[in-house]
């Protein structure tokens, strides 16, 4: 479980665990050559943005929005402060890829952010790091000190008159701060409550100034694009889905972990890289893009390729690339109960449909799981979920609704069994057997 490197890696290539994150090793791997190229060959911001557009890089934080297009929204001739912000608040259940980028290759993010700053005319940036991964915040600060000492951030970078300052800000236990406008509020020292949009951050962002927010992995992809060209990056993946993507695979596989593979790789191939299903049990279901993405039955998943378009066509989302694998020992009602609890717990409480609706969803699924469900509960659940989605300030409302609707849609008989028989279709001992291995034996 040590090396996340696969033969096709570009973001996690050539790393040796905790030993090679420092600037010396980064530069030996060719690090900071892209920033140098930008500044020394006189690439213009327009040329950089055009290259990113050509790469067909789509945001790796969840929504899959084209990065080049997002960058082009920033006001070109705004004379005052503008900000570039990195979203490393990785808290979407199932997602743990940004952690490995920051752990093993933090300078890649710094370089990507500096290039982004140059392309959008920003002289200041922040990286917002999930509080739970504290050591990565400390490491990022160390990496920043190295980059500053080497002259890659700060004033007059490489003597080319470009100023860029970058700092780390830590979260402290609030999933909602992964939502980009909640994250901005949080940097401003407030509760992490999402803002109404519009105005969008590109016009009114951090401290009211134009701001671009991208995910850690998105920024980490930029140096390679500059070094090798947008077309080469695009060609690594498939049309409209450029590049490699780091998938976080959790659940019932033999080797949970992160795997960087080209977008468009068939799901069965990814499953094989993870050592196949734990205990040789049968694949039941997969949540392909983090807990907010609709669940898909295993047989549908086996026909998918791992890219935005294929997963969307199958009825779910690639999201953050968090692949949660569930085998036949899984009780779908209990699984949904845990996810519903999470959204209820993490709702920031600003919008009534989300605040009340997530509580309602959780209590109903809880009731079904505990043998107190009523026959009409399933329709009510679906109804409540439909009434949250699309009616809230931020997408957490949708994120709470999607699992409920998709679990019931694909696994309705299991929910009905629960209501009728007041117990799980999958016997509890079988469920425990399916997940106990790492309590019995440490994986490392």
């Amino acid at each position, binding site marked *: 479980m040590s090396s996340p490197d696969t033969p096709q890696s570009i973001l996690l290539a050539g790393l040796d665990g905790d030993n090679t994150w420092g600037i010396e090793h980064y530069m030996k791997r060719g690090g900071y050559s892209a920033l140098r190229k930008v500044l020394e060959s006189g690439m213009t911001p327009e040329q950089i943005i055009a290259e990113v557009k050509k790469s067909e890089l789509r945001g790796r934080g969840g929504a899959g929005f084209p990065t080049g297009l997002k960058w082009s929204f920033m006001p070109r001739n705004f004379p005052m402060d503008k900000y570039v912000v990195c979203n490393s608040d990785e808290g979407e259940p199932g997602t743990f890829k940004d952690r490995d980028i920051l752990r093993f290759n933090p300078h890649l993010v710094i370089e990507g952010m500096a290039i982004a700053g140059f392309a959008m005319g920003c002289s200041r940036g922040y990286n917002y790091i999930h509080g739970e991964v504290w050591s990565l915040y400390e490491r990022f600060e160390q990496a920043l000190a190295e980059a500053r000492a080497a002259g890659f951030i700060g004033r007059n970078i490489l003597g080319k008159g470009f100023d860029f300052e970058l700092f780390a800000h830590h979260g402290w236990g609030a999933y909602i701060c992964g939502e980009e406008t909640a994250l901005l509020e949080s940097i401003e020292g407030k509760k992490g409550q999402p803002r109404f949009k519009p105005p969008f951050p590109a016009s009114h962002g951090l401290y009211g100034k134009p701001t671009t927010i991208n995910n850690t992995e998105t920024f980490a992809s930029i140096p390679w694009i500059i070094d090798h060209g947008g077309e080469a990056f695009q060609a690594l993946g498939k049309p409209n889905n450029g590049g490699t993507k780091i998938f976080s695979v*959790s659940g019932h596989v033999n080797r949970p972990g992160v795997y960087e593979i080209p977008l468009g790789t068939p799901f069965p191939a990814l499953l094989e890289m993870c050592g196949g299903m734990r205990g040789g049990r049968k694949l039941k279901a997969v949540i392909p893009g983090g807990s907010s993405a609709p669940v898909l039955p295993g047989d549908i998943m086996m026909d998918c390729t791992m890219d935005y378009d294929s997963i969307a066509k199958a009825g779910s989302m690639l999201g953050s690339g968090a692949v949660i694998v569930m085998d036949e020992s899984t009780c779908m009602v209990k699984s949904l109960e845990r996810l519903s609890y999470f959204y209820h717990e993490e709702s920031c409480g600003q919008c009534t449909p989300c605040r009340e609706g997530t509580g309602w969803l959780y209590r109903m699924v809880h009731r079904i799981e505990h043998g107190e469900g009523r026959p009409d509960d399933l329709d009510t659940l679906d109804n409540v979920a439909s009434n949250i989605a699309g009616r809230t300030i931020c997408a957490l409302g949708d994120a709470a609704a999607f699992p409920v609707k998709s679990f019931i849609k694909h696994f309705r008989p299991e929910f009905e069994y629960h209501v009728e028989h007041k117990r799980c279709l999958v016997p509890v001992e079988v469920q425990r057997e399916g997940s106990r291995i790492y309590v019995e034996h440490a994986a490392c």
Partner: protein
Amino acid sequence: MNDTVSKETMSFALNEASRAAIDREVAKYPEGQAISAVMAGLRIAQEQNGWLSPEAIEAVADYLAIPAMAAMEVATFYNMYDVKPVGRWKIVVCTNLPCALSGGEQAAEYVQEKLGIGFNETTPDGRFTLKEGECMGVCGDAPAIIVNNTRLCSWMSREKIDALLDELK
């Protein structure tokens, strides 16, 4: 940081190390935005005091010259601030679905059994407080435990849980 002001008197003053650490945070933000350092400030005060008493929150607010209410709102919004006293060791076990599929729940049960307490409870000797965690962003390391907010423990089998709890005096 051992010059903690005792919990009994409830008075609290930021010590020199804490003030220096907060100064470094304030320097990250633009002129006039010291309030951006409130999250770090509260974390630092919590580390010094063991938990965030109202006095500790007020001290941070005073130091940053922001309204105490603003700091209080932040302290109560984010889960990793302990606005009530906790044991010497706060143990948080992730039980969210991805972890649960690899033993997260069973690890939590085992810790409960060993400590004889449930979630959100503290052992009578004040040594341990146990909490149920949400996704820590390390699901590949399940079962995952975080001790006192900053120490991540991965792949916590029963054996490793035994060793960890023995180590935390």
